[in-house]
């Protein structure tokens, strides 16, 4: 007998005879959060930053003023081509190692934990939201949902090869519980909240 068959047989034998019902998730969705307000507060508290912008031109201005544009800046958003390179999605992922800033878009954000849902079709490359020194993500203000239950309602049956919730910059507290931003991934996360 293969290990698979042996394991499954033993499990079948040992699991309870009756199946317990799955609980209803609906009551968990009740909320009266001010979603935008909550989103901003939580993002700040976990080391992220936000900028409210009304269009892509304002994002371009912000990047020019706040980042070293002599270094490598990459994006998947055609609207930002003035300030960032668009032609890298077929490159070897290792070559993104020297990216100073990568700008992508999120499908939506979650107020209770400030996480942003990004999938591979928005990333250009899967490693792009992890490897740069700094990361910036744009999201529409009316695409912020209250809680994770609403988030999965939004995701529904969405197809993706890879998707991730990103909440703030990469961080660690493994040395005596002192919080340090920028463990392996981005040292900073700027969220552009768009009208």
């Amino acid at each position, binding site marked *: 007998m*293969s*290990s698979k068959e042996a*394991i*499954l047989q*033993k*499990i079948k*034998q*040992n*699991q*309870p005879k*009756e*199946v*317990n*019902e*799955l*609980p209803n*998730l609906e*009551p*968990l969705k009740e909320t009266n959060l001010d979603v935008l307000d909550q989103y901003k507060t*939580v993002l700040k508290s*976990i080391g992220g930053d936000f900028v409210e912008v009304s269009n892509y031109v304002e994002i371009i201005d912000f990047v020019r003023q706040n980042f070293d544009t002599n270094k490598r800046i990459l994006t998947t958003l055609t609207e930002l081509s003035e300030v960032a390179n668009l032609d890298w999605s077929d490159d070897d*992922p*290792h070559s993104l*190692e020297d990216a100073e800033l990568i700008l992508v878009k999120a499908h939506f954000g979650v107020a209770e*934990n400030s*996480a942003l849902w990004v999938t591979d079709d928005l990333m250009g490359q899967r*490693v792009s*939201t*992890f*490897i740069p020194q700094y990361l910036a993500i744009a999201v529409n203000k009316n695409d912020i949902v209250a*809680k*994770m*239950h609403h988030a*999965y*309602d939004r*995701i529904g049956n969405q197809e*993706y*090869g*890879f*998707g*991730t*919730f*990103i*909440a*703030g*910059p*990469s*961080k*660690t*507290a*493994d*040395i*005596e*519980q*002192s919080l*340090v931003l*920028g*463990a*392996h*991934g981005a040292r900073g996360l700027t969220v552009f909240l768009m009208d």
Partner: protein
Amino acid sequence: MKNNISHSEAAEIFNKDVERVNWHDETLWFVREKRDRSAHQIPEWELLRETASQIKLNVLSNIHDYLVEFEANAQKNGIIVHWAANAEEHNVIVHSILEKHNVKQMVKSKSMLTEECHLNDYLTERGIDVIDSDLGERIVQLRKEPPSHIVLPAIHLKKEDVSETFYEHLGTEKGNIDPQYLTESARHHLRDIFLTRKAALTGVNFAVAETGEFVVCTNEGNADMGAHLADVHIACMGFEKLIPQRKHLGVFLRLLARSATGQPITTFSSHFKKPREGKEIHIVIVDNGRSVQLGREDFRNSLKCIRCGACMNTCPVYRRSGGHSYHNAVAGPIGSILAPNLDMKKNADLPFASTLCGSCTNVCPVKIDIHDQLYKWRQVLVQEGYTPKVKTIAMKTMATVLANPMVFDIAGKTGRFAMKNLSGLVNNKLNKWYDQREMPEVPEESFREWYKKNGKATKRKNDE
């Protein structure tokens, strides 16, 4: 892992450095308080726990079908699925994947399952270089120690220790104890590793039967750096990591980080569904005693555990004895339930390493009856004859004394006399109860004596 000494002996050694023990205790309590603050911000916290617990109950009662469903969906997504009955088989599978790809170096992100299976040693013996990439794991790996906590692997170390370790292995400045500086050095060291490894291994936090995807949660992004830069991604999971549907992730992702560190969610909650084009994802589904535990009705619920570590952070025994004293990959209250299932003889001491105060049960996000299970293990272990020696004598004596009123009376009188007049006889190493405790003041008379005199009168008074 060393296991020639018992929990209490190891704890005794740990307790010699009083200052360090106090510091350890306070650090973990600080994490526990962060968890409280975070939980209290969610008005529906208790409903959330109850819901998570019920989802896991459903999983445990239907796990056979969910596993079959998960495998089929994962395969449809292009993921290669393997099954391992035990630790040895798990290690052989991982090794064979590496061999097939001619990989001599692998980067690994945190996985307690591979600790349980002693994978690093197995691969190292076969000439494969394994680098742990979670900062805490890397620190203990350089020191050739196992992690002492499932979420905070280096929680037992001070920044001076880390500084010394990095000076020795990474060439950092001697005596520089700034966490920012030390983290930055590790960042450079590990970036090199990520950029040069062809294979990456990660753990699995949740696997979804409905979609065949799996989720890995980290704050550092190390699992993602490894997996997205490598050609081969191997993900190892105990079969209990399964959940029914994608939407159930919403419940567990709300609970996990809040219970672990007080964060509203981990920085990255990554959903791996399909491999990149031309690359491979392998999943190894491991039993290693889990199906036996599933059949132990009293201990079945321990398989609901989502490895948040909250029970350790709150446990007064863990906080004052340190993770290494549990001589098991998973330490603390939940580890003490899981370990005897794997090896009763070797781990018979662990269910006794608890005050049964119930604090663990109160914080557990999936409502495992942790302290009740510890109590039940004690009974099983005594019945099976696996009790630690000193405890056996004490318990047998106690049983005789409690069963016999006259002996009980005499024993009480003798005890009180001894404690008062021969304190050296009580406060010695053979009396396990005295270890780490101050003995109480001795009462003038026993409760029995007091009751004989006043009991009846009191009773009459109450009846009036």
